[in-house]
């Protein structure tokens, strides 16, 4: 634009930048505080001396957390739930999205309605809970893998992507060549749809990593618990006694706090580390969902 900016506009720009810098600080600071606190000594934590930088740097809290067998057990369980759960999600979502993206599929609107309806009406928590119990899934790993095997929303996003990016002619000509539907899906449609597959993988994997409620209501057996349930005990119910062995009574409060911070960091680190590399896909996923047919 060739026009000179008025004073008002300059003020607005400056104000806007200040506001967003303050906003960014508010988004980041809670996490930063947890990280610096986790590597500070218990006395500084108990006296509230830590604010921007670590005080009395040490890794004692991490040692205590890593010496707790439940942390390893639940971490392993969570990794299993993320891998197995995401695989099941991807296979089933694709098997639903591909046929429903085909305009020549008789009855596809009916099937879509059947799926979309579940997004807006549900039987409620109690019937779902009793259903999982009746199916004999209580205290099995399946209880965390099957009830959420397909997200109707993700299925719609994937279907929309197939419909808008895979030309009908491509599928037609592959059929002329005698390719089966499975082969078309595997060798033509999926390789052309890597952006949406990446987004789905991330959405489902983050969902499994963070999920805790289903585990709480379906799993009594502690050997099957995911990390988030242990986190709930440590962070929300403040049960850190198991990790406090050998701590003098004067230090209990401070050490208990550093243990909480260290556990938070360990549980969140994988997401924080991969986040910068993946965040463009996350954003893309929301945009894909925004495409209305």
């Amino acid at each position: 634009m060739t026009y000179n900016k008025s004073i008002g506009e300059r003020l607005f720009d400056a104000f806007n930048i200040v506001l967003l810098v303050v906003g960014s600080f508010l988004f980041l600071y809670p996490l930063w505080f947890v990280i610096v606190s986790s590597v500070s000594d218990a006395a500084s934590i108990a006296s509230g001396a830590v604010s921007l930088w670590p005080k009395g740097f040490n890794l004692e809290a991490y040692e205590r957390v890593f010496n707790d067998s439940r942390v390893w057990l639940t971490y392993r369980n969570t990794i299993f739930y993320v891998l197995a759960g995401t695989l099941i999600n991807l296979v089933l979502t694709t098997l639903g999205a591909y046929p429903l993206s085909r305009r020549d599929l008789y009855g596809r609107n009916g099937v879509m309605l059947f799926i979309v309806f579940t997004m807006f009406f549900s039987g409620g928590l109690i019937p779902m809970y009793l259903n999982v119990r009746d199916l004999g899934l209580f205290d099995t790993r399946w209880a965390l893998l099957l009830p959420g095997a397909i997200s109707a929303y993700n299925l719609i996003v994937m279907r929309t992507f197939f419909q808008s990016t895979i030309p009908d002619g491509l599928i037609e000509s592959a059929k002329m060549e005698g390719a089966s539907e499975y082969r078309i899906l595997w060798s033509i449609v999926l390789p052309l749809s890597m952006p949406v597959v990446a987004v789905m993988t991330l959405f489902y994997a983050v969902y499994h990593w963070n999920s805790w409620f289903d585990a709480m209501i379906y799993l009594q057996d502690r050997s099957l618990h995911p990390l988030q349930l242990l986190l709930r005990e440590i962070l929300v119910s403040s049960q850190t006694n198991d990790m406090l062995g050998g701590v003098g009574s004067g230090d209990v409060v401070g050490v208990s706090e550093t243990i909480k911070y260290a556990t938070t960091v360990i549980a969140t680190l994988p997401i924080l580390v991969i986040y910068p590399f993946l965040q463009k896909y996350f954003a893309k996923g929301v945009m894909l969902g925004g495409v209305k047919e």
Partner: protein
Amino acid sequence: MNANAAKSNNKVPDRLKKGVRRATFRGVIKNRSLYIMLIPVVLYFIVFHYKPMYGAIIAFKDFKPFLGIGDSPWVGFKHFQQFFESYFFVRILRNTIVISLYQLIFGFPAAIILALLLNELKNQIFKRFVQSISYLPHFISLVVVCGMLIDFLQPDGIINRSLLAIGVIGEPINFMILPEWFRIIFVGSGIWQSVGWSSIIFLAALSGINPSLYEAAAVDGAGRWRQMLSITLPGIMPTIIILLIINIGNFMVVGFDKIILLYNSATYETADVIGSFVFRRGITEANYSFTAAVGLFNSVINFTLLVLVNQLAKKKAESSLW
């Protein structure tokens, strides 16, 4: 088939109907692999979504686990009546509505405002930086977020210490056990966690606005504020309306898993919502039929709201979900 159809103009001849049916049948046969792919998907929705909808009939029965859903005796609207007459009805309905309303009034515009502010930034690198940081909280688990809240808000936590240091308060406030603080904490932390993520969709809509509109407006002497009101806001209005419909359709769904993590018996008065009540009475105390009735009441209200709002939007704003 065309020749057959031409012979009779008044009614569809049987032979044509048969032809259509045969063509459909042939289409189904031709695409049989596609239907086979759909079998596990349809089965999933039947077993994990439609079967529980059938299971919701225990709301009209006295469910006895050893009799099963089918054989438990019918009791009509007994559980609904019991719920409507109970002390909890007003409390959990009020809490659900108030918390939802706070989220709608403060959370929904917050995402639009963030998107508008980001959109006004000239420096693309700074813009991308702020955006990335604003999404981050969305990916932190609810358990961790609530753990941090409880830690920061405890009497000798960082928030109380900071407020004491700058002299806003004289002595520490025990936020987590004071009913008057619960909703602010719940909704405020929800905005912290979701505002960046929710703004993405508005940013996408903003990037779709034709830049020549702004140039034309500038030539006509419209300032930035005027441009925002006359070009930017109307440009993203369809997106705002669609998301508003979805939000109102979910009005009676408050994220009760977060409520369960944050509340305690001291804050039930302002914190207990329909979802957390169903969880506590249903799963912890095994009152299946009664809480199934409460849950069904909630589902029906939600669905009705969604249909009504969608209808209204279709008429008034000409954009709708379906």
